């Protein structure tokens, strides 16, 4: 089939269960302009180079007009869509209550709490023979964790679930479709969610509690303060990025292990392999498949010139299966070494929450694996979520 329709086919919902043959086609085709004008890159070394290239922007305002879609010039954006030095400043501020250098032990200290939440979810499965990994486990775990971490009441889930869904839909890639509607809706959801989170934070001003929203408003160092607007965009980003992806990692993990019973068995007997297995999952079935960028100058990628301002889509999930980088890339191998996958991206925008996601996935899968002994998939492939960028099953029914 024509290589200039690859983006269409990759994002086509019908291909959600198995986009990997398309990725192989993409790697063979090289960098090709797509029918909608955007450029796809799917080979490992080119993706890594672009993620470290200072001429590449994440800021949508740098897109040339035809690609820009709907951008609300008045709404400020979070650091995932900002370039240096603003990106650096805001990411560093967001890091203060979360990780090193200011709070190096924060996430490590959550291990016990995460194990407790996991335990509760597992207990609730007792006696059931049929469960949905997503609804019963993989979704509630990261949501509860991010709520505790940020200081968001878990009971408000019905409200924030909808906002979150609209936000991730607004950032998805859908070639050939006018994005104005969903981008507007996403902007609206972001604004509402931002107000909601800032209100929660404001209630804690002067009454510090041990959550991050509180830390943001009570930082005693003036250098550590976010403006109200920055707090809103940052909190929304952390909240959404903090659970919409982890749910996919846990679900993909269960799905992959049930598809590879030998490896499941091995992990049951060698739980030491789990950290490595989680890295392999992030390579083999990553929760994030595509990341958008735009060049600030005409740049040459593998012999193709990508013009300044063009829409550039990095297919990181394809880089993860590049045989030029990974031996036997289509094989799920929990003992794989030298696994420098792109599951969390690379360069300055590398996932902020990666350590938390890793700990959650290790604890979650570690607790589930002993119970998957006789489990079977009810439906294979399972029904997928619509999102092409954040790819994962919508439900994963299994028989215990």
């Amino acid at each position, binding site marked *: 089939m024509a290589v200039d329709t690859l983006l269409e086919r990759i994002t086509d919902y019908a291909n959600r269960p198995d986009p990997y043959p398309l990725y192989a086609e993409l790697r063979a085709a090289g960098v090709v302009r797509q029918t909608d004008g955007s450029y796809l890159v799917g080979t490992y070394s080119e993706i890594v180079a672009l993620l470290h290239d*200072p001429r590449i922007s994440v800021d949508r305002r740098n897109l040339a007009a035809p690609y820009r879609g709907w951008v609300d010039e008045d709404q400020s954006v979070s650091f995932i869509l900002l370039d240096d030095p603003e990106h650096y400043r805001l990411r560093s501020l967001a890091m203060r209550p979360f990780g090193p250098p200011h709070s190096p032990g924060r996430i490590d200290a959550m291990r016990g709490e995460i194990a407790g939440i996991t335990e509760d979810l597992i207990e609730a499965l007792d006696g059931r023979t049929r469960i949905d990994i997503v609804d019963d486990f993989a979704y509630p775990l990261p949501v509860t964790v991010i709520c505790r971490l940020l200081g968001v009441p878990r009971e408000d889930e019905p409200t924030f679930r909808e906002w979150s869904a609209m936000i991730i839909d607004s950032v998805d890639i859908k070639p050939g479709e006018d994005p104005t509607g969903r981008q507007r809706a996403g902007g609206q959801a972001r604004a509402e969610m931002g107000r909601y989170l800032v209100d929660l934070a404001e209630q804690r001003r002067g009454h510090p509690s041990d959550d991050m929203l509180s830390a943001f408003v009570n930082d005693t160092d003036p250098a550590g303060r976010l403006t109200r607007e920055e707090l809103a965009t940052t909190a929304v980003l952390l909240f959404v990025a903090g659970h919409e992806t982890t749910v996919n990692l846990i679900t993909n993990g269960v799905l992959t292990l049930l598809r590879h019973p030998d490896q499941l068995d091995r992990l049951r007997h060698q739980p030491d392999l789990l950290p490595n297995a989680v890295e392999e999952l992030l390579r083999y079935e990553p929760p994030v498949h595509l990341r958008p960028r735009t060049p600030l100058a005409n740049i040459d990628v593998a012999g193709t010139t990508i013009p300044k301002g063009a829409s550039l889509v990095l297919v990181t999930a394809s880089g993860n299966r590049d045989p030029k980088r990974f031996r036997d890339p289509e094989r799920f191998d929990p003992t794989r070494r030298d696994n420098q996958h792109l599951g969390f991206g690379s*360069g300055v925008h590398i996932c902020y929450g990666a350590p938390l996601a890793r700990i959650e996935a290790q604890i979650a899968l570690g607790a589930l694996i002993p119970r998957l002994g006789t489990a079977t998939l009810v439906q294979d492939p399972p029904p997928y979520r619509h999102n092409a960028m954040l790819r994962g099953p919508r439900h994963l029914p299994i028989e215990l």
Partner: protein
Amino acid sequence: MPGDLRQGRIVIVGASLAGLRAAETLREEGFTGSLTVVGDEPYPPYDRPPLSKQVLLGKVAADATGLPMRRDPDAQWRLGVRATGLDPVGKRVLLADGQSLPYDRLLVATGTRARPWPDPREAALEGVFTLRTCDDAGCLAERLAAGPRRVLVIGGGFTGSEIASVCRERGLEVTVAERGAAPLVGALGGTLSKFAASVQRAHGVDLRCGVTVTALRGNGRFTGAELSDGSRVDADVCVVAMGAVRNVEWLADSGLAASSQGIACDAGCRAFDRYGIVTDDVFVAGDVARFPHPLFDYQMLSLEHWGNAVAQAEVAAHNMVSSGPLRRPHLAVPVFWSSQFGLNIKSVGVPTFSDEVVIAQGSLSDGRLVAVYGYRGRITAAVTINMAKWLEYYQGLIETAAPFPPGPGAADGRPLVAEFSVPSNVPDPKGLFHGPTVALTGHLPDYRLAVGRPAG
């Protein structure tokens, strides 16, 4: 493959980073013969970079930096024994204990030692230190922990600057005496050395540049030093950080091309003899080696870089057991790091091989930046300060001999190129050389090539 060495005897002299990594690689490459590693220090291989950082800070004990093995090289370790000579005809390494070791292939990885203070009597004063070994670091750490009133560091290179940083972090008064115009000038050139000077002063270092120390004073114990500007520094600890001396004396009669700059070898790590004829059974790796690099006009580089020791040891080991066409070149682009005053300084390429420099990202005032160095219109080096995640990009530009200054368009909100570039103020690298421009290609070790690139 005929000519491959699978059996036989291999001797490695130097039981440190390069020696250990080479030993492991030999086994990985399938060498099953006898392997002996000789080292004059009594300890198993240990890591030196932490000595001027974690160890002096008191966070890690001096004897706790032992290097992990990537695999057990199943070697005979002859530790605490010095190699005193080499008989290249009889193919034997002579040892201080009178024994000798026959070899089929020899790897020389004897590294460097700290350059001592030139006056042996002054150097022997109690309180005068150098820093190269874990014993040095242990003694110095102990003295720093005891809270001396002032420390004098002679030499503002990387090691001297790191020691000064540790002193300030420990709350100790410290004077740095540097002969050049600013610290790190020899490594990073004028612009960044001025930045380094301002960082040191901002951290309370008493920095004296453009001076030499003329004499160390004391009566048994070090009490202070005289400087060439007529001043005197009163201090109770002195660290001589005047660079390194290559451990080549033991090869004086070997016929190899061993000089104060190291042992010359080809790009495949094979040692040259005194006539410039390449040997086929003596290999060199690590700080003691001098090797030609195509990206830098084939000049002979002598690097004191951790990463070079590892990469070169791997190439040397591979070539020691591989026959002609399967041998690999050591083409790694030099990378170095240093941490001091809370800054992560990394460099790629050879900053001294340059005539111009620009600040391509960040700024001196932010204290985070990328400086890019050029030589005759192509990029030859880059230095990052707290911006290490960008280094890889510039490494690619160096490897592909990209034009200097780097092209426009930056992800930090302004043109990548500072409006103008300034002289890098390093001594001009070797007269007038109009060689072909060369680029490196390939990522995997066995695909890495140097290809000609027409100038223009």
